[in-house]
């Protein structure tokens, strides 16, 4: 359980922690869910990036979950097993590799991202898709850190 000495209602540690600010959590859910519900970016591509960002942060809660929309769209668990070394593993498309590179640079230092690194993603996703992709990365990065900061436990850990 998180180091916070209080919690609200919820199915897992993330929900019980965030539920201490219920209005904020409700607004967060609305924003964070829109990328999946409205299919603003391909859900499998987005899930690969979400989990890669979680790997970089060691965010155990995020790593313990799978987004339903990505599962429905054919997310491949065998591929996820290779995600930590995607750059030297087979089976990732050119767009997936470009998006993963972009996601990693976003987490580490977006100011150091080159136009050459960004271009394949922008060309493939278009302006609207790129904006959605970057906004989703902000959620993955920010709330992966949120989970590490508060020591949010993975799904299935005892409360």
């Amino acid at each position: 359980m998180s180091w916070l000495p209080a919690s609200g209602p919820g199915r897992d540690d993330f929900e019980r922690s965030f539920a201490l600010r219920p209005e904020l959590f409700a607004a967060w859910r609305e924003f964070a869910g829109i990328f999946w519900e409205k299919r603003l970016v391909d859900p499998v591509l987005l899930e690969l990036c979400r989990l890669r960002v979680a790997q970089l942060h060691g965010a155990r809660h995020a790593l313990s979950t799978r987004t339903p929309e990505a599962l429905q769209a054919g997310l491949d668990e065998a591929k996820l097993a290779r995600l930590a070394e995607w750059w030297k593993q087979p089976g990732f498309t050119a767009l997936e590799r470009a998006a993963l590179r972009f996601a990693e640079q976003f987490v580490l230092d977006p100011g150091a991202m080159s136009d050459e690194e960004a271009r394949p993603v922008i060309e493939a996703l278009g302006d609207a898709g790129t904006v959605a992709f970057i906004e989703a990365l902000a959620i993955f990065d920010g709330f992966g850190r949120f989970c590490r900061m508060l020591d949010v436990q993975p799904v299935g850990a005892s409360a």
Partner: protein
Amino acid sequence: MSAPRVRPPKQRGSDPITGSALGHQPEALLAFLKLYGTLWSHGVLDQATKELARIRNARIVNCAICKSIRFEGARKEGLSEAQVEQIRDGYETSALSPRQKLVLRYTDVFLSGEPEPDAALRSEMLAHFTPAELVELTAGLALFMGFSKIAVSLGGMPDSLPVNVQPTPDWPLPAAGG
């Protein structure tokens, strides 16, 4: 100033946010503004503390837009420009209060490669903030950092901008022209 990677939509209004590249996703933008307004104006943590964390983030991520903005609510609560000037490396020896320095240390850990406070920092945070305030501060940091990184990633960032005092984000949005 670098060239923007994503240009604003052609049919754009005069509002600096909705008229920016973010306007390509109007539904997501509206949801974000609701989230941000809830954080700032319907929270349990004082606005000056959130502003302190936001400005520290802006300076570390190096977002010229975020660095230039000051929110009115925090100013009204007493966060002066003289204090803002001290939100820089070396703040530990500044005249900022112990509580303010604590927030900056927490922010620095959040933004680091190992975003995990040690036992001493956790204990200090719990001595100064309620659990609900800690959730709000940590979620705020996630949004501040995320928004700064979005702005940097989209390109077209000027090198610097003058300080610009703005109304504190709120939800529902204030009426246009009001």
